[in-house]
């Protein structure tokens, strides 16, 4: 087939409109989050007295931090799907999250006597946390991968990892409202580990699914 013949076929197919990536992102991520939220309500559910607890600083902090990470990761993922769009700024903004967490840990270490540190760190729910966050993050991860496939990520495994982080952050935000371990030390260890699992999973999936 000559190149001008190929162009003829491409032009004919061009009449079929494709949804712009930006719209697709919303169209896929919203159902992904809704599925995750439904699974959450059906299995774990928020803690009792959720609305009274929301004023408790440690509890509010971990939920807000996970939501912040999800929002930052979402804008990063969206940019990663668009060739020629800079992503360094979006990646750099993610650093806010560990910085805030480190500050919270500093405050925790000052406020809590040192013989309780170990207990705060290990918590009571570590295994549930490690299972629940990836479980809740799977649907958002799938949605993010779907969007990236629609787009054109220049580095498939890397973009997949970002999608995994996004899924993990959404899973973490949901799980945070259930989890009884509110210490930022617990969050730093177990939530991070769960999100690292998701990130690795996303990278593996991305390397396979996002090539173009």
């Amino acid at each position: 087939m000559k190149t001008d013949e190929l162009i003829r076929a491409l032009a004919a197919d061009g009449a079929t409109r494709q949804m712009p990536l930006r719209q697709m992102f919303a169209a896929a991520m919203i159902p992904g989050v809704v599925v995750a939220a439904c699974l959450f309500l059906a299995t774990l559910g928020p803690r009792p007295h959720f609305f009274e607890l929301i004023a408790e600083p440690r509890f509010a902090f971990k939920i807000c931090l996970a939501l912040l990470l999800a929002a930052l990761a979402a804008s990063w993922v969206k940019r990663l799907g668009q060739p020629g769009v800079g992503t360094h700024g979006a990646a750099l903004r993610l650093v806010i999250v560990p910085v805030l967490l480190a500050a919270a840990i500093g405050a925790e270490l000052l406020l809590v006597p040192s013989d309780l540190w170990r207990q705060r760190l290990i918590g009571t729910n570590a295994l549930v946390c490690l299972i629940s966050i990836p479980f809740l993050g799977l649907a958002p991860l799938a949605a993010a991968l779907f969007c990236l496939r629609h787009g054109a990520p220049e580095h498939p495994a890397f973009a997949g990892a970002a999608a995994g982080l996004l899924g993990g952050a959404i899973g973490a935000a949901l799980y945070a409202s259930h989890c009884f371990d509110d210490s930022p030390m617990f969050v730093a260890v177990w939530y991070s580990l769960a999100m690292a699992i998701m990130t690795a999973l996303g990278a593996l999936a991305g390397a396979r699914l996002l090539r173009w």
Partner: protein
Amino acid sequence: MGSDKQEKEWAFLMRAGNAGDADSYRRLLVQLTPVLRATARRGLGAAGMADTDAEDVVQETLLAIHLKRQSWDSEAPFGPWLRAIARHKMIDALRRRGRRINVSIDDFSEVLTDGAAEPDMVAADVGRHLEDLPPGQRNVVRSIAVDGESIGETAARLKMTSGAVRVALHRGLAGLARKFRTEEP
């Protein structure tokens, strides 16, 4: 990869194409082709490879531009998007040909005014993958690409609805892109 004025024109044509204007879209692809061809030759040359494969890279890049056109944000400049796609497909092509490569972005940012002409003899091209498509898709792609029929004419001749022709065409083109990607060197 093109002058500012050229890139603005391409962005204009792409927006029109995305809004359903097939003629603008075809003009865009026709204008891009010589630029992509020159870039492909330079890229292959820089890697010490014969430029007989250049047309392969051109066709693969055109397919990628087409299949990924929704990843261009119509508010964004067109040049960086085009360069990123062309670079990605160039690296991919070189990697498949078994080279550790280092493609510099500069290779894709040169202003090109004179396009390169299509070679008369195309050693290998997208056509060889046509045979590997499922028959339904193959017939539709061939009818539109090689025989120059419209969607409507193809539908009438193959006794299909035009919707089915559109679906087969799109799947066929996506299949061609996939075959390029997974091809053994």
